């Protein structure tokens, strides 16, 4: 056990799985970096350094740099997965799904069903998401609701370094296509992470706080913010349960429902655009299945329905934060018929 960043936790999961299983390969744009160039090899290790050091250990045959051709190399990862490899492909920013989505949602996601259960496609697509780096409209989106919508895909949204390592190892060993979301603002977060490999199962939410007054369901980077708000409000006598679903597909609906039936009050915090996101999905689910237990209207904390802006002042305004979460929790806690 030692303190590790989210970046180091992802890197360690990849390295340990590559050591364990020779069919695990890594591919993506500049995953090593410097391919064919006169200067340094392993120059980048991915655009934010997450795969740094893998190429020197495992060689160019297992750490493949690619042309900027997402359709071809994401599709190649899918095809290779159907033919005996366990590729971990990096879609640098999830915003780039627009240039390769067919290979993910029409090919990888549907092989097993279309081919009558005879195909196995153990591909992992790691991708960066989220606002906060002043990266503007085409490098800041969440988009995990789009993948969650597709039957055949599993969608993982780790909220911390510990979660990232265990969930990524699980993703690599899983036999279905998995989309693994890494929030840019989490890479430098640190916490204690075991040195040895471990797995966190999909579809089992992590309850980070327990309290009987309000249920807060939060995703990815929002989990930590929700926890901080819960700690603050506990001092005022509002006790919140904070649920990190970890995976949006499969979704641990049982844990969410159990808590909502106890508290009767639900806040869902989702950084994704507000229409048809996980907040609306979870709110609809809770309404359909726990209507009688609800003591207040469900509140959803999400950004406005706009592209992610560039100017720092606007982006700060755009992103949901502790202030918005706190206001929502207070609103449901104070709600009276």
């Amino acid at each position: 056990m030692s303190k590790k960043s989210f970046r180091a936790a992802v890197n360690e999961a990849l390295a340990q799985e590559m050591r364990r299983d020779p069919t695990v390969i890594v591919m993506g744009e500049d995953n090593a970096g410097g391919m064919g160039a006169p200067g340094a090899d392993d120059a980048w290790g991915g655009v934010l350094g997450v795969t740094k050091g893998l190429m020197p250990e495992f060689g160019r045959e297992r750490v493949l740099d690619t042309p900027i051709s997402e359709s071809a190399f994401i599709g190649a990862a899918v095809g290779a997965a159907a033919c005996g490899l366990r590729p971990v492909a990096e879609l640098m920013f999830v915003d780039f799904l627009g240039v390769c989505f067919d290979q993910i949602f029409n090919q990888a996601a549907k092989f097993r069903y279309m081919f009558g259960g005879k195909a196995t496609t153990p591909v992992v697509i790691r991708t960066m998401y989220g606002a906060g780096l002043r990266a503007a409209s085409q490098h800041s989106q969440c988009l995990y609701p789009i993948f969650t919508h597709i039957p055949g895909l599993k969608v993982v949204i780790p909220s911390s370094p510990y979660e990232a390592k265990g969930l990524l190892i699980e993703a690599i060993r899983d036999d279905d296509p998995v989309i693994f979301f890494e929030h840019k603002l989490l890479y430098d977060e640190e916490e204690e992470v075991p040195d040895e490999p471990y797995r966190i199962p999909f579809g089992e939410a992590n309850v980070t706080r327990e309290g009987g007054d309000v249920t807060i369901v939060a995703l990815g980077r929002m989990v930590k913010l929700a926890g901080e708000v819960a700690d603050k409000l506990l001092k005022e006598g509002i006790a919140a349960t904070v649920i990190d679903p970890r995976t949006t597909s499969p979704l641990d609906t049982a844990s969410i429902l159990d808590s909502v039936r106890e508290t009767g009050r639900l806040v869902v915090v989702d950084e994704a655009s507000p229409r048809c996101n996980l907040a609306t999905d979870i709110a609809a689910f809770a309404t359909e299945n726990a209507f009688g237990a609800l003591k207040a209207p469900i509140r959803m904390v999400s950004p406005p329905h706009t592209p992610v802006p560039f100017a720092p002042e606007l982006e700060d305004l755009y992103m949901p934060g502790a202030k918005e979460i706190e206001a929502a929790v207070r609103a449901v806690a104070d709600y009276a018929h």
Partner: protein
Amino acid sequence: MLQLSRDQLILAYTRMRTIRVFEERVHAEFGGGAIPGFVHLYAGEEASAVGVCLNLEMKDKIASTHRGHGHCIAKGCDVKAMMKEIYGRRDGLCGGKGGSMHIADLSKGMMGANGIVGGGPPLVCGAALAAKTLKTGAVAVAFVGDGGSNQGTTLESYNLARVWNLPAIFVVEDNGYAETTASAWSVGGSQVKRAEAFGMPGVTVEGEDFFAVSDAAEEAIRRARDGNGPSLIHLTLPRYFGHFEGDAMTYRGEGEIDSLRRDRDCLKGFRTRVTETGLLEEGQLDGIDGEVAALIDEAVEEARRAPPPRRDDLLTDVYVSY
């Protein structure tokens, strides 16, 4: 031609004939209302699938197009299970969940017909990468139509196969039409020059000539297997039926299909060639025709009688585990 044994010639004819009769029969059954959905027929193009696949081994992979029945049969898929699949029956090749457009059998190296034009080439890059990484010695073939040749996925795949030096072969089946649109209009430049632009050898071959296709395929497959990277084969081919069944084909020329059937038929050409050179006899080929007709009759009879999927089947096979 000289490399092919008598057994291989018999197999080639049997498979081409099977594809032809299969497709003619699906055409008739569809017309009679027995087959649901979208169906795209391969009749006229048999020498492509068979000329290429006869040079492949079981471990080699292929990815197909919208027009996938011929590639399936050429790669050795079970014909009766195929017919049941096209009928949407439970013991079809894909449990009745794929149908004509997604017919596949990974155990035979057939990675699927594809409902997305240009969907196959990236997958073939992956199959070739797996073969290279796992050192299996296998190669992978992407069949692409002239329509699919204009997709970015296909052009990206040419580049990726080249820069990764993959054991991949791209077979562009140019049957003259992307749906209704003539390839003479829709394809800028030439298929072979496109290959050359990406640094791989390319060749244009008359696709109704089984022997020419087989020779070109043998060379490209050997090149890939020897570690010398990808190639492209551009085949000009006749398409006997419409884009899909139900297509009135008003865009085709007066008498065009009759003349294609008369002058560019791969089965007639094959028969003439092997009988004139004394490699096979008319009687042998007639015998195969009879066997194939009986097989397809049985396949249709069995498909008609086969049970539909069960209610529970709706929800299975989405994930390995969930």
